[in-house]
């Protein structure tokens, strides 16, 4: 077996082992180890490779802020500002058919500007928006669907953990990636809103027995001033995090720490955070961080093995000689991501596929900021596709309502999958959508 064949077989092995239930990180580490062992025929080299990857691959400032971005999301989730944002959006869209759905999308988009993880969005809005919608006659399927669907905004609109990871994997400026996420995020939100409007007027049965009375009677009454007051905390956080980056108080890398501190103070101020709760949030942050970063270490072992096998260079030159154009390669790549997204979590997909495609895309000379956005949108589709869709899982488990099953969530989210794919195609065809805000 040639080195390149070993590399190729390892890809198959990874897929098999992961789907048959081995921990993703263990599968990656195992095949990296076996791969180098076969290629170099030397146990010491193979084991040293693992050790070097473990000590080098996540020792960087940027990895240090991963837990802080996660912590920020968790703190914001407990702070109650998701509910306030929703209340205001709800008031704003009163009188419009499907207004609560639109309010959910808009509130999610605003909320996304202060959280870097989609599970935070999904958990918060399941608690805040779903009961409200059901109470006003929306079908449960529509209600959970819109929450799951719009939770993806959490990692598209900056700050975003996925964009950070992509930046790390490809050494692309995270600041630029963040800027590039804004327009596609707004576009996707707008597309969702339009779709909800159209559905509400053309297929009212799908949305539910919403009538004009329901349209106008939901949510607490509030004056303009009260609305402003409710939006103040989230506005301050957005100003602090995004404004701070633009104004030059700190770098995008540091914004996680500032945002986490802001969210911490906010949660304290709103009396939503005791010692026990804070500790729970920190423990949860630790577990999420470890599962992401340990995967990152294992993925790094795997990409080192692939490089040692020479397959990385081989794939690059194969694509070069195959005469396939950028768009053919990109299409294949995106379809693979969408398929992988059905079974794998977003971080794993990024870790496994990006190092493989990286040299190929470098060969095409693409703009990696644009490519990052394309990749992240495609990866995010997987958050809401069955059978493994983490946003749907979070919605279901946060709901605590036995009448609404996981299938209900997935089928409710299905329309948003199609919208995401359309937006993805638009971002691919018109790179300006993502690049317009980047220098």
């Amino acid at each position: 077996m040639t080195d390149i064949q070993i590399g190729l077989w390892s890809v198959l092995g990874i897929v098999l082992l992961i789907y048959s239930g081995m921990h993703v990180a263990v599968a990656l580490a195992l095949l990296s180890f076996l791969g180098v062992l076969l290629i170099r025929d030397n146990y010491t080299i193979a084991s040293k490779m693992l050790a070097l990857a473990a000590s080098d691959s996540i020792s960087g400032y940027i990895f240090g802020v991963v837990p802080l971005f996660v912590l920020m999301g968790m703190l914001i989730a407990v702070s109650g500002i998701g509910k306030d944002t929703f209340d205001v959006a709800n008031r704003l869209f009163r009188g419009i058919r499907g207004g609560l759905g639109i309010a959910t999308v808009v509130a999610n988009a605003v909320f996304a500007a202060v959280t870097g993880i989609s599970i935070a969005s999904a958990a918060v809005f399941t608690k805040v928006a779903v009961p409200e919608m059901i109470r006003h006659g929306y079908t449960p399927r529509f209600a959970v669907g819109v929450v799951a669907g719009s939770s993806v905004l959490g990692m598209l609109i900056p700050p975003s953990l996925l964009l950070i990871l992509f930046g790390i994997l490809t050494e692309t400026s995270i600041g630029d990636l963040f800027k590039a996420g804004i327009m596609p995020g707004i576009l996707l939100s707008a597309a969702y809103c339009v779709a909800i409007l159209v559905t509400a007027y053309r297929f009212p049965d799908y949305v539910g027995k919403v009538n004009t009375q329901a349209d106008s009677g939901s949510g607490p009454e509030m004056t303009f001033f009260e609305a402003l007051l409710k939006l103040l905390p989230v506005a301050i956080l957005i100003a602090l995090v995004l404004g701070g980056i633009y104004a030059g108080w700190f770098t995008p890398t540091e914004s996680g720490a500032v945002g986490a501190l802001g969210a911490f103070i906010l949660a304290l101020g709103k009396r939503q955070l005791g010692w026990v709760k804070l500790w729970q949030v920190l423990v949860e942050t630790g577990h999420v961080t470890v599962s992401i970063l340990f995967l990152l270490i294992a993925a790094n072992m795997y990409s080192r093995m692939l490089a040692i096998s020479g397959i990385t260079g081989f794939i690059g030159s194969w694509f070069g000689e195959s005469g396939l154009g950028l768009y053919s390669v990109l299409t294949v790549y995106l379809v693979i991501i969408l398929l992988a997204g059905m079974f794998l979590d977003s971080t794993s997909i990024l870790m496994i596929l990006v190092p493989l495609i990286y040299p190929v895309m470098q060969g095409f000379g693409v703009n990696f900021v644009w490519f990052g956005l394309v990749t992240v949108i495609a990866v995010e589709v997987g958050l809401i596709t069955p059978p493994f869709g983490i946003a749907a899982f979070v919605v279901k488990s946060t709901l605590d309502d036995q009448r609404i099953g996981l299938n209900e969530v997935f089928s409710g989210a299905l329309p948003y999958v199609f919208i995401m794919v359309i937006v993805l195609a638009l971002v691919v065809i018109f790179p300006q959508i993502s690049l317009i805000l980047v220098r």
Partner: protein
Amino acid sequence: KKYKITVSAGHPPVFLWVTLCRDFFIPEIDKRLAALGKGDTIEWNQAYGGTIAKIGGELEAIEAGVSDMGFVGTIFHAPKMPLHNVTYMTPFATGNLYHVVDTITELQGQIPALAREWTKHNQIYLGGAALDNYGILTSFPVKSVDDVNGQKIAAPGPSANWLKGTGGVPVASNLNEYYNGIQTGVFKGALTFMTAAAAIKLHEVAPYIAVVNFGAQFAGGISVNKDVFESFSPEIRKIFTEVGKEYTRKLAEAQTARADNALLAMKKGGAKVANLSPAEQKRWAGKLPNIPMEWAASMEAKGQPGKAMLKGYLDGLRNRNVTLIRDWDRE
């Protein structure tokens, strides 16, 4: 005989020391092997851009045999290769990168501890690379050392020492963050070399370029795993050593040319370049504590020949007719 050699580098091929490894070192070895006519061939697996070893992880990767050969950035291995970092500890030495890289290469034979920094890590040094003269790019004019007083300047690692006593505030950062950091005002300037500054178009946000003459810096070298090297026949070893020497020279040429072009390009792009006069350089150097001697003393305390290394380096430069702004080792 057929050899399989995996070559790694933490940097991608846009950096000259990697470009020349790919476009000169490897083809040249192939050419000379063919000319040797013994039927020896090498199958190269080239993995650059950190795919096998990250920046700062190259030394260990070659030591362990995970990679057979590669570019080791000595500047990222200060604890393991302290003597190679003498240049960063000796500001205002020379802006001529031939002199820097020639002197360090020459010292490999004179100071055993220097060569041991490679052999101790199971590898053989083949050829070296230096970075072009460091200066300072700022969003405000710098005409003398007084202008940096109270200003935040991105100065990672050892270069922070070059601001000691000037009143400048060194901020830890890295090349990827300079542009955004200056644009947004996290800091007002950066200590860096011109090829890097031009590559990230730093002059767009920091149009004032002061050629302070902090000096060209030894950055690292190509090395090969010792076991792999010893598996070669004497003729092949000779080829590697010779091509390594030529690589060093070609790289110095290319880097110098690129530095000149970088400064020109930035000037064309609207940068205002100020060459600090020797008198001003002397004032700046005079404000600094004697960093090189402090470094040498701390090396000696660790059992390393810091004083001999410093003297060797500065004497090497003096022998090449460099007039030092400050004779650090003679104070």
